């Protein structure tokens, strides 16, 4: 091997990317050729300097913690469960009446279950977007305590116009708003500050589904209706404060 053949391979050799045969012939050449040996030394010394002098940034503990929180609030994609296969022969022998009753019962249980699942997912989804927005600095896209600024900004980006009210005189100061999505639809979010807490209020056209007042991973969720809108508040403030706030907000919004 001569220099012309060796030079282009030296970097690959230093990176451990040549096969055994190539390695042997490169090493043979390096022993004989001072120039190529210097090239190898220069690559090795650059590597040593990078490892010694260039900082390797490790993830801040706060980031790690945030990610763990996001992981917790993000609903896992459920694996499809195998459906138990019914025994057709027993169905037949048990008679048509039992079959009908079972069908009716299954329908009741089934729809109740679907409702409960949907509401559960909605609360979890609202909490997940609240957490993501709080942690990712996307809490507020339009920052203003002026309801006449926030409302048109939101209306221009949605197919409905959410009522916006500031309740600063009651301790809940309007900070701004953002667009988010809930139940696969774009939704207006009003952001309020209450003492040290942030409250997200999702405002969407009235829908049939009612959320039970409940906590998801330490965040409370409360719902109210008013002004033909569905108001869903998410925050880490106590459940009763959140509930009375969202009811008050919905009531105030209903007054023209």
């Amino acid at each position: 091997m001569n220099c012309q053949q060796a030079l282009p391979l030296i970097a690959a050799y230093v990176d451990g990317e040549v096969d055994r045969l190539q390695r042997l012939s490169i090493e043979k050449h390096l022993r004989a050729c001072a120039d190529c040996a210097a090239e190898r030394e220069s690559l090795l010394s650059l590597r040593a300097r990078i490892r010694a002098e260039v900082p390797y940034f490790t993830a801040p503990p706060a980031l790690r913690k945030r990610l763990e929180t996001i992981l917790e609030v993000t609903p896992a994609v459920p694996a499809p469960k195998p459906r138990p296969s019914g025994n057709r022969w027993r169905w037949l022998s048990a008679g048509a009446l039992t079959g009908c009753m079972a069908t009716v019962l299954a329908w009741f249980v089934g729809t109740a279950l679907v409702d409960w699942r949907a509401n559960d997912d909605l609360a979890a989804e609202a909490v997940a977007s609240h957490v993501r927005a709080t942690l990712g600095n996307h809490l507020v896209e339009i920052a203003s305590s002026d309801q006449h600024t926030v409302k048109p900004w939101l209306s221009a980006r949605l197919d409905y116009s959410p009522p916006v009210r500031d309740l600063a005189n009651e301790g809940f100061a309007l900070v701004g708003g953002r667009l988010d999505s809930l139940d696969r639809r774009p939704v207006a979010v009003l952001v309020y500050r209450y003492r040290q807490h942030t409250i997200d209020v999702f405002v969407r056209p009235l829908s049939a589904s009612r959320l039970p007042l409940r906590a998801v991973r330490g965040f409370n969720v409360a719902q109210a209706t008013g002004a033909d809108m569905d108001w869903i508040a998410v925050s880490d403030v106590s459940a009763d404060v959140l509930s009375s706030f969202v009811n008050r907000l919905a009531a105030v919004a209903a007054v023209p």
Partner: protein
Amino acid sequence: MSDHSRFEKRVLPHLDAAYNLARWLTRDAHDAEDVVQDACVRALKYEASLHGGDGRAWLLTIVRHAFYDWCERNRPAEIVRDDGAAIDAAVDIASPGPEEAALRNDASQRLADALARLPPGFRQVVILREMEELSYKDIARVVDIPIGTVMSRLARARNLLQRSPLLRAIAGRAAGGET
């Protein structure tokens, strides 16, 4: 929640690698956190696409995509600069003005600076090779370029780092033994 525990086991151990890459690409601690967070949310979404394979290379690929999306929104100018010709321009950028030279005397600061000034396409190849010790094949996968391009970018980036006026100044100083 088995999906989550698998995610935690296979992805979270590589969080430092993800953050380091994002930190060197954005050159800002705060922006790096945003990029990593975005990448992890995506990783969680596409967790199914990690079948066997190396969780680290997989996560770094997502970090890189998240960075370019972030860049498009926040620093579109950098994407334009990210080509082969840009590295020649970087030689000039890497020469410090007198004020800067006075401010940044520390030798390691200079090598880090020279690295930070490489165009992102070259910077990430150096980081993946020298800091993460990924193979050419893995780097090609993460950066989405052919192996030949990995080798040529690595060669040019190393050459630039070695010849950087910043580093030569130090070499000269060390030889002269005088500040």
